[in-house]
């Protein structure tokens, strides 16, 4: 069953319910979610398109649906869910970047298909696929290269997740230093941006990164 056209369904239920608040001229978030319902493609199709087995898809879907009963997750919920894994820090920025990376069709919500496609690349893809995905995550404006500002945003969001109570104390210029060292490593031609080729090449040369990439082989 295809997903209902979001705007259409919204206006339908607005008239039916009359819960559109004239006074504040807004529709509450929960209300919006409850009308947008989504059922994913059948398991067979998903199995073809991703590299997960039936059982894995089942487990993933159960977890997904438990947290988002309506079948899609919007950015707000996404942030809330992700923040539960990092109680000490502020993970909202990084969650935002993740959301952008998962929401491939840019419709403001992540359906189960988006979710599973993304996971399939990360958990079951080749090293190239994974590096590509990571590059896509870092490239905020999707122009094919990572600038220092983009990297700084990403770095800050990662450090934000640590929160305040760390050892040693978090200094303000640490993200910037980290970005500098990253660019030193990745930017071969020293032109101030990291392209996808530079990125993949540098990562493949780095033993640590290659080793870490193998972590994802048995996440699920």
């Amino acid at each position, binding site marked *: 069953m295809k997903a209902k056209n979001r705007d259409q369904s919204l206006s339908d239920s607005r008239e039916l319910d009359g819960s559109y608040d004239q006074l504040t001229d807004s529709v509450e978030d929960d209300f919006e979610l409850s009308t947008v319902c989504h059922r994913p493609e059948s398991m067979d199709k998903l199995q073809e398109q991703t590299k997960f087995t039936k059982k894995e898809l089942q487990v993933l879907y159960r977890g997904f649906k438990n947290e988002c009963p309506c079948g899609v997750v919007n950015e707000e919920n996404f942030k809330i869910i*992700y923040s539960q*894994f990092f*109680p000490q820090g502020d993970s909202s920025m990084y969650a935002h970047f993740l959301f952008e990376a998962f929401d491939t069709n840019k419709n403001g919500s992540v359906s189960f298909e988006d979710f599973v496609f993304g*996971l399939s690349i990360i*958990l079951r893809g080749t090293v190239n696929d994974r590096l590509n995905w990571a590059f896509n995550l870092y490239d905020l404006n999707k122009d094919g290269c990572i600038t220092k500002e983009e990297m700084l945003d990403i770095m800050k969001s990662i450090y934000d997740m640590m929160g305040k109570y760390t050892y040693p104390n978090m200094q303000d210029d640490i993200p910037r230093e980290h970005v500098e060292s990253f660019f030193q490593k990745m930017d071969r031609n020293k032109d101030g941006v990291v392209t996808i080729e530079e990125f993949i090449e540098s990562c493949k040369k780095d033993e640590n990164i290659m080793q870490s990439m193998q972590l994802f082989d048995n996440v*699920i």
Partner: protein
Amino acid sequence: MATVAGWLPFARAAAIGWMPVANCPMPVAPMDNSKRKDELIILNVSGRRFQTWRTTLDRYPDTLLGSSEKDFFYNEEIKEYFFDRDPDAFRSILNFYRTGKLHYPRHECITAYDEELIFFGIIPEIIGDCCYEEYKDRKRENMERLQDDQEENKDMKLPHMNFRETMWRAFENPHTSTMALVFYYVTGFFIAISVITNVVETVPCGSTGNQKDMPCGERYTVAFFCMDTACVMIFTVEYLLRLFAAPSRYRFMRSVMSIIDVVAILPYYIGLVMTNNEDVSGAFVTLRVFRVFRIFKFSRHSQGLRILGYTLKSCASELGFLLFSLTMAIIIFATVMFYAEKGSSSSKFTSIPASFWYTIVTMTTLGYGDMVPKTIAGKIFGSICSLSGVLVIALPVPVIVSNFSRIYHQNQRADKRRAQKVKKARLARIRISKCGTTNNFLHNKRNGLLNELLELTTSTNCLLFQDTEEDEQKLTKSTSLLESQHHHLLNCLEKTTAHVFVDEQMYAQNCLETTLQTYPSRSPSISSHDSSAGTCCGRRGKRNTPQPSSHPTPTPLQELSAIHIQCGDRPSHTASRSNLNRKADESGWLNSRGSRITTAIISLPSPPALTPDADSLRRPPQRRPPLALDHPATPSIQTTTSSAGTNIIKVSAL
């Protein structure tokens, strides 16, 4: 965290964003070697079968169903977990695992529900917001009811109290003994007599011929004086007795009833002192007015009066509002009437304050008629005034009435106080659950790292420790796979950013220490590492742990350039089953009571950009360790004791 357990694979996958950025290798992921991942468990509760996934139950390892405690209830023959409990209450408990929210079913008895929660190891504080108010209300009602029952029982049996306490009890509860009852009625009678006397005093008695009617008080002065004296004597005696018997005299003297008592008898004594002085006799007469306060003494005898007084006190805001709005209306209308009636001759509305009287009389629909408007404008405004008066007065009255009925039906504390407690308690609950996750992680880190430490030392000194297997088993507790995966995720983040999570206490301490930084001594040698290992593993006093003469190979040590061991009580963890288990483990572990250990690897070999190398060699001021460390030869362990009783042992390994 457990509610989003299904998203843990996603969270771990999302860590791909950290990998290219990190400058050091990630820790090894926990192996998921349990084949029983997606198993259906059957829970047989008094015959009703519930089924759920094993992973669902594993979300809350702190509870009976999530931990290995449920193995005690496993029935081999039917291959089910059998619980001999109430299946209806079990529904909401199982739903807690499924949805992460605990609900309180309103038809359940509160004590039965509480017992079920305690049995299954779930703390009631995690009841969701939707049901928490109800739960707390019912619990309080129940406690009050039990308390009332207890108090009644208490009255019936008479423990040995001294004379003073007996008297006080007699005063407060007249039904306890006949003497108290007699006293109660006698004082009541005299209050009535006193009030009637005051009233009759002013009635004009029959005239005695030539003189005009004089009030009885002046005619039978002596009689009234004797009556007054008798009453005041009784009241004085009563007051003194109460003062003597009161458990807290200061508090008694401040209470409302005692003030009323004092005000009731004071005029008499002042009058005794002040007779024959013409100047102040006017004031003396005024004082007599206060004798009417004796009637308030009746409130000790009437519960209803007390409730009325309490109602008025609690409705102070509504009464204040009534007064304020009335005042506003009076001023407005008085002004209007004054200016309206200014023109007419011989008008009674001489000034605005003079018009106040008219406005009040009209608004309360009294209408004495001593002041009436004569102009047309005045009459118009006058009618508007009387119409609005009805409304303004009618509005706040139902509020006061409903307040009275509410208080009358359930005597309870002020609502404001309750609301504040609820908000505070709610914030505390949220904080507890958050703290739990973090502390769990920090604790597990310690566990895991000391495990590594143990492995490192055992691999090089396998002769020293005989029962290595047992140690390993002891150290690797049965944390669920979920937890270990989550902790691995947090570990990866630590590695990426080259900082470690600490809890608030440690952080505050570190801040403190950075301000008192002193330079390190260059002494720490490999032996210190050994002694630390010896300390860590010297958990049972009888164990033989001689100082190794041979030094272990330095290569594994390069991995750990500093080990932070923090010991001390952390009273913030309470009410969690795993915490209780933890404490029990540790007391056996280090042979000292209530000490906790957190280990954190601080610095890593490769990147020059990372900071902690300098910090790790800090040497805090040396103080005597209060721990029962088994090794006398620990000179290179430097310890700090903070005021909170935590102990930090910093050991440099190289």
